């Protein structure tokens, strides 16, 4: 379904994310980031999407689970504005201004959420069910996704 890992050597992926806890279960995910694809495990037996990346479908126990790209479109379910570095490492954040994060319900499946940094919207203007879409930026050696308001999205 996805040949990202085949295009990138393990060493390339490890070098691009020097601080990440990369293992056999999530290697494809990190390789996908370098291709600007956000991969989520998808069950070939029952069709369910699931996070985090584990080699078993929590809904049907099928092992026919493989990472597949999601659209990156969704609506805001949760948000927080970080005012200082705390328990959360936000790659690329310099903390000169507060850093908003958004957990969005992804259109692929109700209840499936992806959490990313939000750009392009004042933190005070974030609302429940606000449409967002995924975009990409280079942070050091890594390619990382963020959310931005989606002018074409539906709440």
């Amino acid at each position, binding site marked *: 379904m996805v040949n990202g890992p085949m295009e990138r050597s393990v060493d390339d992926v490890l070098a691009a994310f020097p601080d990440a806890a990369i293992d056999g279960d999530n290697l494809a995910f990190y390789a996908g980031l370098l291709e600007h694809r956000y991969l989520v495990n998808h069950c070939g037996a029952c069709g369910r999407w699931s996070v985090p990346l584990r080699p078993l479908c929590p809904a049907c126990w099928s092992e026919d689970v493989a990472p597949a790209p999601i659209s990156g479109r969704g609506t805001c379910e*949760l948000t*927080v504005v970080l005012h200082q570095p705390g328990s959360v490492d936000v790659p690329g954040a310099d903390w000169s201004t*507060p850093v908003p994060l958004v957990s969005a319900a992804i259109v692929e499946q109700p209840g499936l959420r992806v959490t990313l940094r939000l750009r392009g919207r004042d933190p005070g203007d974030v609302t429940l069910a606000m449409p967002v879409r995924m975009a990409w930026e280079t942070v050091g050696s890594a390619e990382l996704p963020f959310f931005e308001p989606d002018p074409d999205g539906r709440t």
Partner: protein
Amino acid sequence: MSPARSPIQDQVAIVGVGTAPYSRGGRPRSSPALALEACRRAIVDAGLTAADVDGIAGTATTVPFWQVQGALGIPETTWGTNHPGGLPIGFQLVDAANAVFSGACRYAVVYHSAVHPPGKRRSSADPLRVRAQASARSGSFSWVTPDPPGMLTTGGAGYAAWAWRYMQEFGLTRDQLARIAVNNRTHAVPNPNAVMRTPLTVDDYLAAPMVYDPLCLLDLDVGVDGAEAFVLARVERAADTPHRPVLLHAATTGRTAFAREDQLEGFGRLGPDVAMRALWERSDLALGDVDLFYPFDGFSFVSVLWLEAAGFCGPGEAGSCLDEAWRPDEGHLLLDGRVPVNTHGGNLSEGATQGAGALREAVVQLRGDAGDRQVDGAEVALVAPGGIVWNAAAALLRTP
């Protein structure tokens, strides 16, 4: 009399309690040193010696139970377990109660020690504190190595995100949230073990800097060096101990399937909801019997969800519940007009020992030994350590 809803009900007692006094800043004591002090005090408090203890349950990956056993000179044990460092006290309590009830051991010591590493910004000149922080970060704490890296709403950020959601859905205000912080501080003022004893007002709270907006500095617990320990025994052995035993009426832990902050299903389907349903199913007491309430407050917002889960208010109604319970002249909360909350100051103001301080306070209150803080006539305490993600637990304690 009908049979109890659970065979363990009222069959295990807390017969000893010991504290390694809380402190913050300065040269830290090691986690083992704190655990040993608390365990020694608890065993002496129970009128026992090292030779009587044959079971140990603890936390903190840095101080496993077998090392505690050796350091205390406990000659033989037949039962022991450890939970990961930082896990609230409920898990060890439930495990030890089951072990004592089943006969796996006669006297179990339960301990929890906390050592406060400096925050990222609060750089410390003390080399031991800096090393403790580095060790914690390189250890088994998954929240510093998110998997995958999109998982940014961990810990405080995750709780703040759910607080935002609750405010959006149900209209909870920061003024209402402030009452939890102020309540706990008010109770900490007369508590000599508390590290935050300067009185606090709602205005002080509203002026505090934001950390995880909508949570501010005063919504976050205060890291301390400190430890608590407890001795558990079957109730028939409790008659021989020097203090009034405190009965464990019911205790349980509770989790839902997707134990990650940003994947939790939603309000009403969180760990505290599972724990409280299970607790009432195992109990012959009702909410109206509860005289003292100790909701977890690692973040103030966690107490909001425990209020709901326990049944002090309906879904989404915690804000109005806090309005009704608020006593502005006293600066504290009285639920249903009579039930005080976190009478020791909680993790927010006494210090963050992950619910261990709340359990100690409940025992001391039910013994009638709380001094200036004593709540007259208190017979039942509801202690609810843990958060909403994966570590919730709840216990009902009562006088004999």
